[in-house]
């Protein structure tokens, strides 16, 4: 079975089959030609599949078996925080009073939903140490851009519209510079020093009166805490810039350090990471943004507020707001899940989450250190980065190691990122994994390191057990086939 092509749903289609059950038409039937202008009645039907309900279920079940999720096995994908996705979250998000409410209903009819959002907002204010939070942005990158637009509006309101530079470390996620560009800024890259932290001298060199902001992930993408954060914030603030916290790695510092106390002016969070989203195969996410008081006037519209009478209200009267960043009020369904998670964990639970996330990462780092190069040898936070340069000398690349891990039933770490590590492997175990799982993964890594020395082709030719072998990505990009086209027999 594995040697055959998996059918596309279109290839299962047969005229005359249906998979739907529409309501009966109980009003007089009319002719479309009478209802629509000439030339606007579709004359060629879209080629959607014609299949029965069982066909559909079998098809998607087959596809699901060709997919690896957190529930399938360990998923130490660095920077993505692939923790367990609690099932209660799914049940709560599907409650009719949450799933079946329309975003434009009168506020008086959705007070329960607004109360939940307000409580989530308030919890995130506390967790981040900021003064106000908006739940509007749909994802992390969307949150980054939202916050940068606010920084831009802040500078413009102060007559400093000339501030057009955003400083980003060389280890930053690609979304940071891209968000800066979309918000109309130029990006300046600041170097890392030999300890893997931002080089303060280089930072002092690049700041100036054109500095709008510094974007920083802390702990950074190497999993290291930027110890000089206070000094960095001072450098930026002294020239009038703002300091932005990329909350991708918040799982590492809950109850240990808050962005608001570290000198950050704004922060975005990835609720689909730290707060158990889930990831959904690539989305949806939710990327709330928290800000300090001086940025509050620029929050996107509307702002959810609690009125004196205890009711909740969407405030549109925000003259300095950057405007709308998304229709309606953010990815509510994801916010419900995150809220359920926070309520499930409580303050003690969130503290334990961070402690175990960091314990697990350090444990794995020390277990693997003898077998792989560790470019930055100090306590890590929730993740760490190994280098495969030792293996590369033997002809085995990090990509090969990743592919070999598939044979052991694991999702590989993030590879070739951050960019400042040669043959990088970024490993983030998360707190929801047991010691047995961590040990088994380490054993697999150690075995691969041995195979690299003894039988490198076994690694180079991996994977050997997956439903499909390595795919020709060059061919996919050179002659793109982005959709199915029916071949007439």
């Amino acid at each position, binding site marked *: 079975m594995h040697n*055959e092509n*998996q059918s*596309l749903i279109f290839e299962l289609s047969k005229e005359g*089959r249906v*998979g*739907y059950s*529409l309501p009966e038409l109980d*009003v007089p039937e009319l002719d479309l030609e009478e*209802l629509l202008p000439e030339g606007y*009645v*579709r004359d060629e039907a879209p080629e959607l*599949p014609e299949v029965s*309900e069982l066909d559909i279920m079998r*098809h998607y079940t*087959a*596809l699901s078996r*060709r*997919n690896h*999720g957190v529930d399938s096995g360990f998923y130490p994908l660095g920077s993505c925080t692939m923790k367990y996705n609690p099932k209660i979250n799914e049940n709560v998000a*599907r409650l009719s009073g949450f799933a*079946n409410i*329309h*975003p434009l209903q009168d506020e008086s009819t959705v007070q*329960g939903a607004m109360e939940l959002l307000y409580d989530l907002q308030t919890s995130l204010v506390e967790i981040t140490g900021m003064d106000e939070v908006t739940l509007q942005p*749909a*994802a992390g*990158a969307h949150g980054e851009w939202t916050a940068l637009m606010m920084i831009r509006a802040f500078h413009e309101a102060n007559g400093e519209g000339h501030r057009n530079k955003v400083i980003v470390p060389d280890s930053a996620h690609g979304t940071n*510079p*891209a968000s800066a*560009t*979309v*918000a*109309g800024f130029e990006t300046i890259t600041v170097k890392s020093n030999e300890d893997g932290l931002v080089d303060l001298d280089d930072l002092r060199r690049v700041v100036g009166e054109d500095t709008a902001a510094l974007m920083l992930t802390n702990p950074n993408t190497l999993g*290291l805490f930027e110890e000089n*954060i*206070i000094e960095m914030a001072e450098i930026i603030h002294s020239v009038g810039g703002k300091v932005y916290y990329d909350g991708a790695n918040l799982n590492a510092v809950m109850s240990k350090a*808050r962005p608001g*106390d570290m000198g950050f002016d704004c922060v975005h969070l990835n609720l689909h990471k730290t707060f158990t989203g889930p990831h*959904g*195969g690539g*989305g*949806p996410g939710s990327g709330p943004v928290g800000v300090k008081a001086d940025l509050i006037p620029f929050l996107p519209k509307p702002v959810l507020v609690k009125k004196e009478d205890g009711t909740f209200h969407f405030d549109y009267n925000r003259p300095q707001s950057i405007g*709308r960043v998304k*229709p*309606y*009020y953010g990815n*509510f369904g994801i916010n419900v899940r995150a809220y359920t998670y926070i309520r499930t964990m409580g303050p003690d639970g969130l*503290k*334990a989450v961070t402690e175990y996330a960091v314990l*697990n990462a350090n*444990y794995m780092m020390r277990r693997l250190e003898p077998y792989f190069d560790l470019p930055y040898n100090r*306590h890590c936070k929730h993740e760490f980065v190994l280098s495969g340069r030792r293996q590369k000398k033997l002809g085995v690349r990090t990509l090969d190691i990743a*592919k070999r891990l598939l044979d052991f039933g694991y999702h590989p770490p993030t590879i070739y990122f951050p960019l400042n590590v040669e043959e990088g492997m970024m490993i983030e175990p998360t707190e929801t994994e047991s*010691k047995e799982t961590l040990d088994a993964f380490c054993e697999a890594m150690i075995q691969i390191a041995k195979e690299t020395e003894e039988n490198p082709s076994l690694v180079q030719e991996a994977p050997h057990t997956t439903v*499909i*072998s390595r795919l020709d990505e060059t*061919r996919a990009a050179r002659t793109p*086939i982005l*959709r*199915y086209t029916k071949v007439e027999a």
Partner: protein
Amino acid sequence: MKHRYLPMTEQDKKEMLETIGVESVDELFSDIPESVRFKGYYNIKEAKSESSLLKELKQLAAKNEDTESNVSFLGAGIYNHYKPVIVDHVISRSEFYTAYTPYQPEISQGELQAIFEFQTMIAELTGMDLANSSMYDGGTSLAEAGMLAAGHTRRKKLLVSDAIHPEYRDVVATYAYGQSIEIVTVPTKDGVTDMDALKVLIDDQTAAVMVQYPNFFGQIEDLKTIGELAHEAKGLFIVSSNPLALGVLTPPGKLGADITVGDAQVFGIPESFGGPYCGYFATTTKLMRKVPGRLVGETVDQDGRRGYVLTLQAREQHIRREKATSNICSNQALLALAASVAMTALGKKGVKEMAKQNIVKTRYAKNAFEAAGFTIPFQGAHFNEIVVKTNKPVSEINQYLLEKGIIGGFDLGRVYPELENHVLLAVTELRTKEEIDALVAEMGAYNA
């Protein structure tokens, strides 16, 4: 404390600390400077057990008036449609919802193929050459289309029809500000884009003309003529479209659209108080290499088997960084899957039948309102929404309707001052004749 999501035992912890060579977990945080260390205790609610939290949140959910226990005529971009039950069964398979972006194609063929099928279905419905793997929602997708047009044409002006969803227009304006792009609003006449005004406003600086199809008032725009005007000025033609309507309407791809965007919420996705939804982005082969977001392409493995990969990634932020033209990093994979299942269940015939039911039932409602003495100001062809003029404030009418178990329409006066006391009503296939009759009767009773 022990928690069901945290498996480490005290013994595990002890052994791990020994391996690391530290005495306590606290030592692992010694790199956090004393001055920024959080020494307090989060002032958030204490943890609750599974059963008591469920109970509490059910009560909170029950405070809301939902569209299941009420009869809803509220649309305005998000609709109460038939959701095939099978959709939730498929997206509840945790191999899909607990996975991340399919970066390792060998163990992500399921997700990749599902997206490839989604791309195909959207391309089919819109009549465009290709579609991407999805966007956050219809509004941000429209904004991205505008940014693409400005980059592609190297022009800095977008002509936006006033009959586009007001919140979508607001989002476009925010994005445009970031890119220093000018927004010019094209007014409407009789509920559709005013062609004379458009002819005056369009010029050699116009990057694109944007319209909605069916538009915010439910009316069918003359895409063919608008597209010709856009192309004469060498601008792009961008259409925001309800993909369900394309079950019966000539698709934008056949009427000159360069980019078609919209929201696939209509296919199996609950209203969910604003999201998550499923934006789509479809375009021509010519613009393929400028598409924002992820694309899945077909290829073969080393043994010649058909397979799928994320492709043309040179466009994306993680490769291009500050040179990227869009910062989008995720897609709405799970919602794209939901929409795919619904589109599959409906199929070629069902999508047409469902779209047609929307038009026919809306026409029934229109006739019934007119028979009851209401004025319908816009008399052009419609899809599943109509504008009804009222004698009393819409908010009052809606308050009254709610007492009767009806969620009324969108108060147009909130965003169009000239349409005070006008309500936008959506009639989907789920509304029965009886429900429509009740709406007309109750509105008549209150309005009189």
